[in-house]
């Protein structure tokens, strides 16, 4: 069986950043992704990023993706695409499907940068064609240039719901309404203001009750919620729509970490069960690192920093960097991560991340 030094699983922002750092340190790194193109979610993010200039703020997501790809090419990172990794065995043998057959490779160190998956809601009609994740709709319009429908109901007012609503408008769809179960909008005010100005009504304290239609979506029924989040009888509204998008949060894709026997902590603010890890992003399984949304759902900017961190820590563990050099590099990253985790949303995440590090250190869930 072929043996390699480092395998990075997932070529999104975290995985790309990790592979780049390892290649810079002269590591022999192979990057795997199940998609036919690397970049993860970056290539569907046509909006500009927030933050300071060192975090590539003001740059559009897909341009960040292009930049990372150029760097991996320049550094000669071995990238294997169309290769879903479906098993990792205790001796760090990785099984992946590629060119229509199972292939296996053994790695000395592994970085899991598998990202997150969209949550779904179950309601009558939720399995009808036309009901989809907001991320799926975003992939359709921004990557494949296909409009999923003409009249859209968006569920969830977090940044994903707000941004995808705006991008659906840009792509030529009519966003009939955006509903939010909480009594306030979840995402940034600027994003909400943009879709409001475009005439999209935002109904807070509202939820979906059912979707009507036989073979496809023809309408959706929404209802207002009281202070205890219970439906208020008589407040039902029927909206004529052909598409219902759900932007109701993401959950870390942790299967491979479970398979490896990592210990987990349950942190709802980060999206659920998260593999415990230390300041080097190393899990409770020696030589297995995590970075990006698998360690808690955040943003591309933090995912890239965590990827760099895992890459550098991994390089250090392999003796590619000396203590001092690694320490300096890691410290810079931690400073940037702490800056990124500020503001009303960032603060909650920083608190949750600190909690995760604390739990990991204490060894209790």
């Amino acid at each position, binding site marked *: 069986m072929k043996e390699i030094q480092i395998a990075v699983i997932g070529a999104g922002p975290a995985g790309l950043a990790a592979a780049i750092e390892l290649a810079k340190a002269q590591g022999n790194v192979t990057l795997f992704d199940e998609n036919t193109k690397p970049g993860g979610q970056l290539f569907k993010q046509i909006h500009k990023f927030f933050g300071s200039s060192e975090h590539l703020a003001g740059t559009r997501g897909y341009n960040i993706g292009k930049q990372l790809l150029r760097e991996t090419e320049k550094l000669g990172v071995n990238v294997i695409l169309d290769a879903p990794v479906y*098993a990792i*065995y205790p001796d760090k043998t990785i*099984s992946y499907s590629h060119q229509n057959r*199972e292939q*296996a490779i053994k790695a000395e160190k592994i970085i899991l940068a598998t990202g997150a998956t969209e949550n779904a809601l179950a309601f009558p009609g939720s399995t009808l064609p036309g009901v989809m994740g907001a991320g799926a709709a975003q992939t359709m319009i921004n990557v494949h240039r296909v409009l999923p429908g003409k009249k859209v109901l968006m569920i969830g007012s977090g940044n994903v719901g707000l941004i995808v609503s705006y991008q659906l408008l840009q792509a030529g769809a009519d966003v009939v309404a955006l509903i939010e179960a909480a009594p306030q909008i979840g995402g940034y005010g600027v994003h909400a203001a943009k879709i409001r100005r475009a005439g999209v009504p935002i109904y807070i304290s509202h939820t979906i009750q059912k979707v009507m239609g036989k073979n496809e979506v023809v309408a959706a029924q929404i209802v207002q919620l009281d202070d205890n989040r219970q439906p208020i009888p008589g407040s039902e509204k029927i909206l004529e729509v052909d598409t219902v998008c759900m932007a109701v949060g993401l959950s870390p894709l942790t299967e491979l970490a479970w398979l490896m026997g990592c210990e987990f902590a349950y942190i709802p603010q980060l999206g659920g069960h998260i593999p415990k890890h230390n300041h080097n992003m190393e899990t409770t399984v020696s030589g297995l690192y995590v970075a990006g949304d698998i360690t808690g759902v955040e943003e591309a900017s933090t995912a890239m920093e965590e990827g760099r961190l895992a890459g550098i820590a991994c390089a250090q563990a392999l003796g590619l960097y000396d203590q001092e050099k690694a320490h300096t590099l890691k410290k810079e990253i931690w400073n940037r991560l702490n800056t990124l985790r500020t503001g009303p949303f960032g603060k909650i995440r920083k608190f949750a991340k600190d909690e995760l590090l604390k739990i990991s250190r204490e060894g209790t869930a």
Partner: protein
Amino acid sequence: MNQKADVVVIGGGVIGTAITFYLSQRGQKVILIEKNDLASGASGACDQDIILQSKNPGIHLQLALASSQMYKTLEKELDYDIEYENTGGMILIETPEELKIMEDFVNRQKALGLQVEILNYKEALRYQRGLSNHLVGSTYSPQDAHVNPIRLNLGFAQAARRYGAEILLETEITKIKVKNNQIEGLETNRGTIYTPVIINAAGAWAPSIGRMIGLKIPIKPRRGQIVITEPVPPFVMGDVLSARYIVAKYNPELYNNSESAAVKLGVGLSLSQTRKGNILIGATREFAGYDITNTRTGIKEILKNATRLIPELKEMNIIRAIAGLRPYTPDGLPLLGPVNGLNGFYLAAGHEGDGIALAPITGKIIADLITDGKTFMDVTALSPNRFLM
């Protein structure tokens, strides 16, 4: 918290819950103790066969025949959908040598009353499509059946509770109390239970219970890995095994010298399809201690073997793999009955791969022995004392 019971059963798998059900049904006050959860061991990580044909003609087949009779009315008795289906089953034969052994096997099984016959390749295809054309033929029995083992396990537990049994989950035994060679009770992390009778139905973990009272129970965990496909339209006729499995089980000398990975892992085909449509592809029979992880070689050899026999399986997607620990005994027979010199201590373990098929009859035999002191058939050959003397 101190409690009292007529009988304490150790182990919440199909065997332990079956015993608890049949004893409770007869008015015994039973407490079942399980260190994890119901069906958390082998009963939740196995295939679903109630296959008679694989049983050695003799007491093993007698037990299976009696058990299969009980299955016919079990769903009603438990008032629980255990997904029982009398599908029939077949054993695929690959070589003239295997055919010879199987012919003898089948004749001896027939003598004990099993409806079973040998089919040629063409006839076999009528029951199961997609068979590789290198096959010589197969056996066929209309009496084979299958059941959802997890639902069976939960069904026994639920029905036992209706008869007043108490089931303590996440409860670990710390000590077994014995006085003057008589069982007095046991201590758990949740308190003391006083009882004159303890039944060790802990499957592959039975030896660790035995050690608490100085018994050396010769059961060893034998790992069985199983690969599971996505749900597909009906494809598998019922229970499909390969003769290699039977021959390896009863005539191991025929394969002893082989160096192949499949033989070392004890790979033999065991195929069935769940009600939902997932195909269970088994299995390995390997000694790997108490390790229940799947191995790449294990998965690979199982799939190589299955697709060699039924090439169409290659078209199906695999969604997961599981592994369970079958309780192996040196002579392939379970340990059922009281332990000499230790009044009140019973064993009901060591069924290896036959736990599902034999659960009802095991429950009945143990309940008979405890309430009546005897059972409907001669079970001396199963006595644990054959190893413990």
